[in-house]
């Protein structure tokens, strides 16, 4: 494990009002690797990934304990601006959620709000992000038509392009392919493989084959507790715990 640690979670506990959703999470997330979070429904996968860019703070009465570091700096430090955290740690959601704007404006949105005015740079960045998200060829002739006219798979790649445009360091993906058909899913998986050259990726998935195919590290979560975290290959071929093996072979879940 000579990989460089990008994000680090230390003794993280998380509560929705009085219910504890996550227990004592300790996790290292490695640079330019894909880290997959798997586990049965309701185990806290989505909750955990939301903590990584403080999206959990939009939930009323929720409470987070412990420390989460990005490059050694605590992102929950009161002195840290949440807006800055979310710009550096981007997120792609389960359901494609493009804005009801044009394709161009969707990708340029993050640039606009970060105060970028230079038209040339915005044009360049939109094209580059769409190319990085492998969507450019399909939309280059209709950048100014509505994003809502795209298919589900295209919309999701547009959301990825939108996230990439603000040059995040870490990209979080919360079941990005679960609402898509197999062809679109394959495209997204291919894309993730390309993106890890430049970005650090954390992905939640309920599809174990997907985790096995695309990730370098896998975290198995159950009832809010970390069961096992290791190199993906090991988790899927030689897990150290019986319960992990049972889940992966489909004996429950």
């Amino acid at each position, binding site marked *: 494990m000579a990989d460089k640690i990008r994000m680090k979670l230390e003794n993280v506990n998380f509560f929705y009002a009085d219910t504890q959703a996550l227990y004592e999470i300790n996790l290292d997330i490695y640079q330019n690797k894909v880290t997959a979070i798997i586990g049965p429904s309701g185990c806290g996968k989505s909750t955990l990934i939301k903590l990584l860019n403080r999206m959990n703070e939009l939930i009323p009465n929720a409470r987070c304990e412990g420390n989460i570091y990005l490059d050694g700096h605590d992102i929950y430090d009161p002195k840290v601006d949440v*807006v800055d955290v*979310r710009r550096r740690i*981007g997120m792609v959601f389960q359901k494609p959620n493009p804005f009801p704007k044009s394709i161009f404006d969707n990708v340029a949105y993050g640039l606009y*709000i970060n105060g970028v005015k230079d038209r040339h740079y915005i044009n360049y960045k939109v094209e580059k992000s769409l190319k990085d998200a492998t969507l450019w060829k399909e939309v280059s002739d209709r950048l100014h038509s509505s994003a809502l006219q795209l298919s589900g798979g295209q919309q999701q790649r547009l959301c990825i392009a*939108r996230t990439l445009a603000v040059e995040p360091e870490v990209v979080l993906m919360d079941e990005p392919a679960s609402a898509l058909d197999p062809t679109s899913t394959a495209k997204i998986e291919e894309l993730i493989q390309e993106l890890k050259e430049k970005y650090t990726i954390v992905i939640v998935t309920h599809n174990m084959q997907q985790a096995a195919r695309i990730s370098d590290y896998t975290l198995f979560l159950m009832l809010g507790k970390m069961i096992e975290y290791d190199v993906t290959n090991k988790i899927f071929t030689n897990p150290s715990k019986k319960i992990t093996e049972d889940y992966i072979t489909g004996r429950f879940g």
Partner: protein
Amino acid sequence: MKRGISQRLGFFSLFLCMLVTLFFLGAIIYFITARGVSAISWEFLTQVPKKAMTAGGVAPAILGTFYLTLGAVVFSLPLGVACAIYLCEYSPKNYVVNLIRISINNLAGVPSVVFGLFGLAVFVKFLDFGVSILSGCLTLGIMILPNIISASQEALLAVPQSYREASFALGATRWETIKRVVLPSSLSGILTGVILSIGRVAGETAPILFTAATFYMRGYPNSIFSEVMALPYHIYALMTEGTHPQQQRHIAYGCAMVLLILVLMVSTLAIIIRQKQRSKYG
């Protein structure tokens, strides 16, 4: 067999209720048109009243209604939308805010004549604006505030939460999210609410009774502190205080028809705007 009959009976009674509603709607339109259409002419729409209101036109009343409506919307639109944004997007979800929400809904149920009395006491007397366009606009504006707030709130709540999440996840602040995503997406809903309120403001008599309206004035108002003629009040005055009921009655029906057409035009505009907004991105 029995279920078939009861089903038919159910459909029939629903159909009947629909017919009765339609009948009244049609009857109003027919009645007003039949009695008013003879009064409508180019002169009626563009001239001032003549010969003790028995001849001439009602142009000052049309213009007055326009001023009052415009003023009321200019006053209540920013206030109402801002209030709705605060309640939907910023305020904590607690009982104080719930209380505010309930109060606003109750405000919508206050009779319009009470708003008229309030306007008389506060704008006309206390703030000394006198019986004027300004007092009338403010009174009407306050009256439609609850409508504009609830329409805006509904429009804001209809914006999918996923839009907000997407914006926050890109590093937008709450205000940037509202300005660039939430408001543009809810604009058509807010506009629809506003335009429906316009229909109500244009037709209200009681709130302007003591605050703005006058039965007759020479020429047109020259400042926001002028009294003003207005269509609904003109109808009321012609029917109750007219000195020549025979000649004046058809003028009143003519006014009613003009008012009806104006409101109808505004509602049509609302529908067109909404369709445009929907087809823009969809």
